[in-house]
């Protein structure tokens, strides 16, 4: 995007709240059940049924509001949003329109330069999710209403984001936050966390907003960024070509990397919002809010800063570890159990552990190496029992289920050889076996030290203590 133009982006994020039962009925919310086995008569919109509001959904919404420093409405209204679609059984969605439960909060993200940027969150409100459609049933579409009635929190940002990267960063921050708060599992594959983006462009310096388009159903951080990058460029191209941006709803075609208009859907829908007469105004008092406040955990930002201060981690590493509360917990468990420096633990988690988790497609909760086991390995490394290289082999063996660090080291006889006498003997043998290189080294070719180190390592099957080897070689070879 060239300097002439400025992008203006706002995100609407729908996150499923992790309640056990639905927002208005006592049906279960667990993912993956057989079609329509979790749709009660209330979720199906049967004649005569009535909604009753789930207390935990309200608590979770309030928790989110407190975490973003928002105003919690003492009185908010549930309203009907009327439209016809097969996955919406009542022909209306119970949502909130005027008077949402949460309003005017903020979230700090890091912009492209790593600077703090405050994003305003205009509102967050409660609503019920719709069901799902499946295709491939011949000339029919099949409707599964298991998901209908699952509680959603719709989080609406102000159009404060100025780039695709910022939008992705904001989405990540919200994702991290809802997981920290334990109000959502944020599982994008299962549809627990969905994002729509509103984007427009305007000449830099202009205060009036340009015509915006809406990109729906962006379900990964990468897609949000790519879709917005594309759409921003597209809009600039249109405007620079003298045309006008048409206000429309778009989808992102991930395969081709382009946005395209949604087919049909709601032709200029008139939702005819009105307060739901089956539900009374939601009143939230101080006591309720205080009780929720007591359950607030350490928030992601605070945790990140504490990792830097208390564990002396580098800022980038602290940020990575703090982003996923499960990873942050894992790190602290390891750091607390090992004698090695926290930075060492951080490196192993961010590097080696993550590599194996990714390779095997696992989340850290399913890690084959638990924190105490990793701590044991790091202790062995710290005490010099094994070298760094050996440690990596042991780590792989632990992951493969061969046992604990101690067991593997013993079984394979991997103890690092540090005894100067034993090593000294090997060093003398190696030096004696390579007189030409020894002479070259003594003549000033310092780089050959690496050759000798390699030979010693080979002779000791990698178990020689590298620092000792270096020291003994330099002694034996003389020179610098």
């Amino acid at each position, binding site marked *: 995007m060239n300097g002439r133009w400025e992008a203006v982006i706002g995100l609407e994020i729908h996150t499923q709240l992790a*309640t*056990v*039962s639905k927002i208005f*009925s*006592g*049906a*279960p919310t667990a993912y993956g059940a*057989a*079609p*329509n*086995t*979790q*749709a*009660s*008569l209330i979720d*199906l919109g049967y004649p005569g049924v009535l909604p*009753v*509001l*789930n*207390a*935990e*959904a*309200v608590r979770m919404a309030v928790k989110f509001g407190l975490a973003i420093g928002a105003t919690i409405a003492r009185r908010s*209204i*549930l309203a009907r949003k009327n439209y*016809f679609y*097969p996955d919406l059984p009542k022909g209306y969605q119970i949502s909130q329109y005027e008077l949402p439960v949460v309003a005017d909060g903020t979230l700090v993200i890091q912009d492209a330069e790593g600077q703090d940027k405050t994003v305003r969150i205009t509102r967050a409100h409660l609503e019920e999710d719709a069901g799902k*459609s*499946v*295709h491939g*049933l011949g*000339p*029919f*579409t*099949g*409707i*599964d*209403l298991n998901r209908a009635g699952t509680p959603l929190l719709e989080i609406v940002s102000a159009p404060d984001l100025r780039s695709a990267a910022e939008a992705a960063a904001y989405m990540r921050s919200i994702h991290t936050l809802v997981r920290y708060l334990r109000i959502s599992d944020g599982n994008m594959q299962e549809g627990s966390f969905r994002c729509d983006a509103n984007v427009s462009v305007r000449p830099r310096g202009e205060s009036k907003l340009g015509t915006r388009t809406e990109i*729906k*159903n962006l379900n990964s951080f990468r897609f949000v960024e790519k879709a917005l990058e594309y759409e921003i460029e597209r809009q600039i191209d249109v405007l620079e070509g003298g045309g006008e941006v048409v206000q429309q709803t778009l*989808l992102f075609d991930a395969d081709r990397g382009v946005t395209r208009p*949604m*087919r*049909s*859907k709601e032709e200029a829908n*008139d939702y*005819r919002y009105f*307060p739901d*007469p089956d*539900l*009374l*105004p*939601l*009143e939230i008092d101080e006591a309720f809010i205080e009780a929720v406040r007591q359950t607030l955990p350490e928030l992601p930002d605070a945790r990140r800063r504490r990792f830097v201060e208390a564990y002396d981690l580098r800022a980038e590493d602290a940020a990575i570890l703090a982003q996923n509360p499960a990873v942050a917990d894992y790190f602290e468990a390891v750091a607390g159990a090992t004698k090695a420096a926290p930075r060492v633990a951080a490196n192993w988690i961010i590097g080696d552990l993550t590599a194996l988790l990714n390779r095997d497609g696992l989340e850290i909760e399913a890690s084959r190496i638990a924190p105490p086991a990793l701590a044991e390995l790091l202790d062995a490394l710290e005490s010099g029992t094994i070298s760094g290289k050996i440690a990596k082999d042991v780590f792989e063996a632990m992951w493969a289920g061969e046992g604990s660090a101690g067991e593997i080291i013993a079984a394979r006889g991997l103890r690092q050889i540090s005894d100067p006498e034993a090593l000294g003997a090997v060093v003398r043998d190696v030096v004696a076996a390579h007189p030409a290189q020894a002479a070259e080294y003594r003549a000033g070719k310092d780089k050959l030290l690496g050759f000798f180190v390699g030979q010693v390592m080979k002779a000791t099957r990698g178990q020689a203590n590298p620092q000792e080897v270096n020291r003994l070689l330099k002694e034996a070879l003389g020179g610098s």
Partner: protein
Amino acid sequence: MSLTREQIQHLAMLARLELAESEFDDVQAKLSSIVEFVDRLQAAPVDDVVPMAHPLSGAQRLRPDVVTEVIDRDAIQANAPAVQDGFYLVPKVIEQG
């Protein structure tokens, strides 16, 4: 008449109601007279009046987050117009994405 043909068509579409051509004029006439009738409200002195959504005051009760429903899908779907493999069937819907 207070409602035009286009308005009637728009309302019928919003409400997903098919109106037969033979019903149309009658619907237009009757709806227009209803609108004229309720237009009496326009003269009402409603400045500073809080709209009443419920006849009784009171706040929404919250229920505990517990699974209470035992769902017998087959019993429920015994009455359904068109089902297959547990899904409710509708004519194929153009992909929304």
